């Protein structure tokens, strides 16, 4: 019987003929902590006197509170640094970037099993890795023993065809999918994205899909490796990490979902759940106090380019703050060299250092009571951005950037229709005269 990507990888890594429903012990290639989950994991290992790391890549990422805004968190960071020195686990320091972006840039590869104490570890699934989020104890054990237990998931195949219309992106596709499935619609399942539209998509856009698989409850979000994967790894000096990995043609899927990208419109996830998605036209006019462009979902160079294209030569609305956080040092440097950071700063925005930024509600843009943030992140739960009285809406970088100019949620397709572009320019000029 043919195998899905999840079944193929877990068969290889467990040394048994694994099919959906089987419980396997799989070897772990990458085990990762971040600074919110690492201290608990490190203490669990210390309790067991398991202070050797056996996973080939054991990595600690300081990204959620980087640099530290409080002494308690500074002390947590010290614990992680000391553990790294003692065990040889790799350390990703303040300024290196978000765990998931760093994993795809430098560590995860097709065919790997990647476990991370962060729910968005599924991001590496776009490289063809079985990547999944777990808690601190699971990852601690995986790091110490170099293996973990997994139930082989059934797979939902998401088959996407058609060309994306201007102003519509992979973020809109995945928000639409989550709205359709519901926040628990794919619980315990693997999502496997494929079809012509996925083949044509850049790696950066694919990461968005895998990143948000967990928002439908899924264990991972896999994409077959191909020439795009190869090129992504080659550009980072990692050609040896590349291998072709595809599902079998006769793989058995629990469900096949077909989506025509050409029919999609920009999506908005309304507060306070990610599956509360609607067309942008239904959100038009919602006043926005803060636009946040960044995160492991949409803080990559392609995202910043799209936003900069819209913001170049324009100003954010007077009552709308613009916070930009590149996802990694690589993204930051690239945006710096190509002048994108200047575009954001001239547009009235602030550019922070690489990391998770305000996404987790720790620092760098906590909302006030009743304030609205339009964010390119993956979550909008109540209290997510540090205040249960705040409101978080999710959208693509294009929607976020265009809305920053208008001060309210706006349809980015207007920007791409020529007549409207002139109108915006005129408004900006008028504004300058005043």
């Amino acid at each position: 019987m043919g195998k899905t990507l999840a079944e193929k990888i877990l068969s290889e890594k467990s040394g048994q003929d694994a099919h959906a429903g089987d419980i396997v012990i799989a070897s772990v290639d990458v085990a990762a902590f971040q600074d919110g989950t690492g201290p608990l994991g490190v203490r669990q290992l210390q309790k067991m006197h398991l202070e050797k790391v056996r996973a080939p890549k054991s990595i600690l990422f300081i990204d959620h509170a980087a640099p530290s805004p409080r002494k308690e968190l500074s002390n947590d960071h010290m614990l992680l640094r000391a553990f790294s020195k003692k065990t040889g686990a790799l350390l990703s320091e303040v300024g290196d970037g978000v765990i998931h972006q760093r994993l795809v840039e430098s560590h995860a590869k097709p065919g790997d099993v990647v476990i991370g104490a962060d729910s968005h570890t599924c991001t590496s699934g776009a490289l063809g890795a079985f990547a999944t989020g777990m808690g601190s104890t699971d990852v601690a054990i995986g790091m110490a023993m170099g293996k973990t237990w997994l139930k082989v998931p059934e797979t939902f195949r998401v088959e996407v065809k058609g060309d994306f219309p201007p102003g519509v992106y992979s973020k809109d596709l995945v928000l639409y999918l989550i709205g359709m499935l519901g926040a628990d619609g794919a619980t315990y399942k693997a999502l496997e994205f494929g079809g012509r539209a996925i083949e044509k998509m850049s790696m950066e856009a694919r990461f968005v899909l895998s990143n948000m698989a967990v928002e439908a409850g899924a264990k991972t979000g896999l994409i077959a490796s191909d020439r795009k994967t190869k090129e992504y790894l080659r550009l980072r000096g990692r050609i040896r990490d590349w291998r072709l990995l595809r599902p079998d043609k006769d793989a058995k899927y629990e469900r096949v979902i077909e989506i025509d990208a050409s029919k999609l419109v920009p999506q908005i996830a309304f507060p306070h759940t990610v599956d509360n998605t609607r067309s942008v036209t239904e959100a038009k006019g919602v006043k926005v106090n803060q636009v946040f462009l960044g995160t492991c979902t949409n803080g990559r160079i392609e995202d910043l380019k799209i936003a900069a294209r819209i913001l170049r030569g324009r100003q954010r609305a007077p009552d709308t703050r613009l916070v930009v956080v590149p996802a990694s040092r690589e993204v930051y440097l690239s945006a710096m060299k190509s002048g994108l950071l200047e575009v954001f700063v001239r547009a009235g925005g602030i550019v922070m250092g690489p990391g998770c930024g305000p996404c987790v509600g720790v620092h760098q843009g906590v909302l006030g009571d009743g304030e609205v943030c339009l964010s390119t992140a993956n979550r909008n739960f109540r209290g997510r951005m540090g205040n249960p009285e705040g409101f978080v809406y999710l959208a693509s970088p294009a929607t976020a950037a265009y809305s920053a100019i208008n001060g309210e949620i706006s349809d980015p397709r207007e920007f791409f229709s020529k007549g409207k572009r002139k109108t915006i320019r005129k408004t900006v000029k008028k504004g300058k005269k005043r």
Partner: protein
Amino acid sequence: MILKGKAWKFGDSISTDLICPGRYFHLRSNLPELAKHVLEDADQDFASKMAEGDFVVAGNNFGLGSSREHAPTIIKLAGVSAVLAKSFARIFYRNAINVGLPLLECDTDKIEQDDEIAIDLATGTIHNRTKGIELKAHPLPKAMLNILNDGGLLAHIEKHGDFRLD
């Protein structure tokens, strides 16, 4: 073992952000202090008013969101003896078993706020003593039952030196 306590009723989609808010990120290495804020954004009074042994009773997809193991850990630390819900999010489920917090999947529409509940964990029988109804929980998968019976994942590995799941 029979667990007895009062039901604290919550709705659907109780996220880990509602259970363990991100604004207390700096308390993650101070679990007793963090536990004082358990479920604060879902019910401000819960932590101060609940009694040792009480149950958290919720709707669908309890624990969705982040992988923070601190969420089930502080529910347990606060004194909650089990969480009952119609369904649980995957990572939360695994974390709860790993830290030894019992979870029961059952029809929680039959339980209201303040109902007196008694649970037999061995059989998965839930007795709503206020309403005089008996409910049955879906049994835990074998692998997870082994881990829970050993007292969590750490104790499981210490006991066997490896995974013993079947």
